[in-house]
C-alpha cells in the first residue's frame, strides 16, 4: 500500500466578519498518498482555494480566520508547528501554484531572482549555483533559451510562459507535495493541454504528489487518480476517478457530471442544478445539498449525514446514496 503523505482530519476554517461566522471549510477530511494526484472539484466558492491555503497556513489574516483540526504531513501536524517550522515546510516540502499567472510574479524582479530566492530560502548555495539552478528550473518547465530568459522581467514574457515560471518557482526546491489551484483556468485551451502535460510529466519525474484544484471534470479525467467533490465547504464524495465518472453515489456529484456538456449528447437543454449554493454564514442544519437535491427526504433537512465508507476507496456523505449502476 502506498505511503500516506498528507492526511487532513476534520479541518475547519472559519472566517469571522462583523459578528458572523463563515464556514469556508467545514469538517473536511482527506488524504494524499505519495506519488498520487488528488483532484478537488467543486463550484466557485465551495472552499477549494481556502483548503489549499489552509494546508499551507496562508489563509489571509485580514479575514480573521479560525482554523481547527489536524493536517498531518509525513506524520507531523502542520497546525501545531511554529511559524518558523512552517516556513521551512513552505516551498521546500509543500508548494502551491496560484491561479492567475498575470499577477503571480513580482513585476520588479527578474524571473531568475524570483526562482533563486525560492531555492536560497531553503538551502545554502552560492550565487553561481543558485543561478545555474534557476536556469535548470526554467529549462524543466520548457522555457526556450533559459540562459537569457533568466534575466527577463515578468512583463516581457507571455501569460503561458508566466504560468510555467510560476510552476518553476513552486517546484524549485523539489517539494513532495504540490497544490495547483486552478493552474490552467486563465490559459487558453491549447496552452491548458500543454501545461497539464507538463505538470503530469514533472510530477512523475520527481515522484511528487499533487493536489489539483479545479472545477473542470475534463482536467480531472486527464490528470487525477482520485477525486474529492466539494460542496459548500464540505467534501461530499471521495473516490477513484473511474468510479466517480461511472458510478457517482452522491446526488450532487451525479448532478454535476450531468451538467457537463458532452459532444455526443443530442442537442437541447444542458441539465443544470436548480437553485444556488447556500451562504456560508447561513448553512442549513441538515445536508447542505438537501435544498437543491431532487431526492431529499425529511431526514436530509434536519440531520447532517456523517462520512461513511461504501467501499475501502469510496467515501460519501449522504443519507440516501444513489444506487451503484
Amino acid at each position, binding site marked *: 500500500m502506498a505511503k500516506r503523505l498528507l492526511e487532513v482530519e476534520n479541518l475547519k476554517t472559519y472566517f469571522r466578519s462583523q459578528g458572523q461566522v463563515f464556514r469556508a471549510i467545514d469538517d473536511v477530511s482527506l488524504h494524499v498518498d505519495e506519488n498520487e494526484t488528488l483532484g478537488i472539484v467543486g463550484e466557485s466558492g465551495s472552499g477549494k482555494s481556502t483548503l489549499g491555503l489552509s494546508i*499551507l497556513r*496562508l489563509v*489571509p489574516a*485580514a479575514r480573521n480566520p479560525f482554523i481547527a483540526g489536524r493536517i498531518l504531513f509525513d506524520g507531523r501536524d502542520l497546525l501545531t508547528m511554529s511559524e518558523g517550522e512552517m*516556513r*521551512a*515546510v*513552505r*516551498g*521546500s516540502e509543500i*508548494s*502551491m501554484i*496560484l*491561479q*492567475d499567472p498575470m*499577477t*503571480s*510574479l*513580482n*513585476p*520588479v*524582479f*527578474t524571473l531568475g531572482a524570483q526562482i533563486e*530566492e*525560492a531555492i536560497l*530560502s*531553503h538551502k545554502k548555495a552560492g550565487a553561481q549555483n543558485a543561478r545555474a539552478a534557476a536556469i535548470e528550473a526554467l529549462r524543466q518547465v520548457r522555457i526556450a533559451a533559459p540562459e537569457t530568459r533568466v534575466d527577463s*522581467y515578468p*512583463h516581457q514574457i507571455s501569460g503561458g510562459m508566466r504560468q510555467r515560471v*510560476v510552476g518553476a*518557482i*513552486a517546484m*524549485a*526546491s523539489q517539494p513532495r507535495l504540490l497544490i495547483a489551484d486552478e493552474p490552467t483556468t486563465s490559459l487558453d485551451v491549447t496552452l491548458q493541454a500543454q501545461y497539464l502535460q507538463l505538470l503530469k510529466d514533472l510530477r512523475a519525474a520527481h515522484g511528487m504528489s499533487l493536489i489539483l484544484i479545479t472545477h473542470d471534470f475534463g482536467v480531472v479525467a486527464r490528470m487525477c487518480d482520485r477525486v474529492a467533490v466539494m460542496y459548500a465547504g464540505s467534501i461530499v464524495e471521495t473516490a477513484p476517478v473511474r468510479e466517480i465518472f461511472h458510478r457517482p453515489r452522491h446526488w450532487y456529484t451525479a448532478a454535476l457530471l450531468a451538467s457537463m456538456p458532452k459532444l455526443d449528447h443530442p442537442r437541447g437543454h444542458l441539465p443544470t442544478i436548480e437553485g444556488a449554493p447556500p451562504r456560508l454564514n447561513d448553512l442549513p442544519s441538515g445536508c447542505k445539498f438537501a435544498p437543491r437535491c431532487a431526492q431529499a427526504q425529511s431526514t436530509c433537512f434536519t440531520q447532517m449525514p456523517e462520512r461513511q465508507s461504501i467501499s475501502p476507496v469510496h467515501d460519501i456523505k449522504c443519507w440516501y446514496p444513489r444506487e451503484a449502476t
Partner: protein
Amino acid sequence: MLSFISKRFGEMAVALLLMSVVVFLLGRMTGDPVALLLSDYSTPQDRARVEQELGLDRPLVEQYGAFIVNVLKGELGNSIMGDQSPAADLILERFPASLQLAGVALLISFLIGVPLGVVAATHRGKTLDVAARLVALIGQSVPIFWLGIMLMYFFSVRLHLLPTSGYGTAAHFVLPAATMSLFTIAAVTRLVRASMVDILNAEYIKLARIKGLSESVVIWKHALRNSLIPVLTFMGSFFANMITGAVVIETVFAWPGIGRLAYEAILNRDFPVIQAVVLFMTALFIGANLVVDLLYAWVDPRIRYGRR
C-alpha cells in the same frame, strides 16, 4: 532613452522660457526699485540717471530681450543692492546651504515616512496604524511657519536645547530640518501605507510566502519595492515643497540659503536677484522631475523609455 532625455530637455527649456516671462513681468508690476535706491533728497535728474544705468528707461520688451540674452550668456545680472555683486554668484554662494537643508529633510522624510507607512499598513486598523495616520494628518495640516516658531519657542527659548537660528553646526540643522520634513513625512507615510495595503493583497505576495520566505523579506523586499513606485512619483513635488518651504523656513531660522536670498531680494525689490533665484528654482524643480522619471525606470522595470 536618449531621445527621451533630449525631449525632456526641450520641454525643460520651454518651461524655463515661460517662467522667465512671468518672473520678469511680475517683478516689474509690483513696485519701483529706483525709489528704494534713491534717498529722499534726490532730484529727478538723479532718478533719470539711475534708471538709465539699470536700463529701466527702455521699453519692457527690450528689457526682457536683454535679460534673456544675458541669461543665455550665463549673466543673470547684478544685484542692485549693496556691493552690486552678480546674482549668479549670490545664488552659488547660498545654494549649498539650501541643498544641505533640503537633502537632510528629504532623507529624514524617507527614513521616517517609509517605515511608518509600512508599519501602518501591516498593522491595519490597530493602534500603530491609527497613531501613524494621526501623525500623518497633523503633519499635513500644520502650517510650517507656525510649526517652525513653536519648535523654536520650546526647544530653544524654553529648554535651551538647540540654537534658535543660524547656520554652522549639526545642532543648527535640527529645527529647520524637522520643520521642513514634517509635511513630507506625513505625505510619504500616507502614500506608502495606501500602496502597501493594496500590494499586500497581491498574488505575488502570496507566492512569495508560498516560497517559504520570511515575513520580513516578503514585506520589506517584495512589497516595499512595489509600494515605492507611487511614492517616487511625488518625489518631484516633495522637492518643490522643500524649495518653496525654504523661503519661509530659511527666513524663520535665519538660514543662509537661496530661500532667504529670495525673501530678501523681494523685500528690496532687487529685480535681477529675484529673477535669477526664481529661474534657478524653476530649473531645479524641472531637473528634479527629470531625475524622478529616470529613477522610475530604475525601480520599475516595466518602464523603459524610448524603446518598446
